[in-house]
């Protein structure tokens, strides 16, 4: 089965760069469950636009630094 979403993310790297923030800590800050953060990191769930902004805001990075979408050529 192919990946359910083409959106990729750098959340795991951003967490480690932010003092090894845990998935639970990030989930608390965004207002979701730890399982949702896990699903996002593993590409099993594409977050809502609002949630994506909230995650990027936690790490104080632009949205494009937290989430990526393949270009037309890569598709």
């Amino acid at each position: 089965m192919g990946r359910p979403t083409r959106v990729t993310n750098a959340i795991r790297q951003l967490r480690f760069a932010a003092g090894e923030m845990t998935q639970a800590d990030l989930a608390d800050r965004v207002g979701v469950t730890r399982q949702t953060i896990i699903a996002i990191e593993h590409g099993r769930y594409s977050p809502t636009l609002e949630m994506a902004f909230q995650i990027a805001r936690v790490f104080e990075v632009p949205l494009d630094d937290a989430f990526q979408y393949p270009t037309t050529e890569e598709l």
Partner: protein
Amino acid sequence: MSFTERITWTSLVVLPVVALTYFTVVLTRLADAPVDEVSWIVPMIWAIGTVIVGMIAGAIAQAIAATIASGGEEPDTEGDVRDKEIDRIGEYAARHVTSLGCMAVIVLAMLRADHFWIANGVFLAGLVGGVVSGIVKIRAYRRGF
């Protein structure tokens, strides 16, 4: 595993067990008597009651287990936006199944079928819809959507 996913697993246990028990009882009776003489009302009431009680008891048990696992903190029983999306996906899938089942029951009514077939048709459609919903939700939880 989130609380809402655990509740979904509970439904995937309760519904098939109740369905299997109920239809075993009723179909055994049907094998021994004409359809208009089969006693199905009390077993169906028991089955529906068992589903309701089973789901409530399962939810309570899951909440207690989650509270213990979190060291006394109140568990999140409402779910987040992802849980709600998965719930919508599951219910949407179930709607197709139950709609088909209800159409079949309408045909039975048009053919003036015995109440036994009509009631059990609706009951079966609901049970199958519930199971389909649970399977779709678990698939969404495990494989993504």
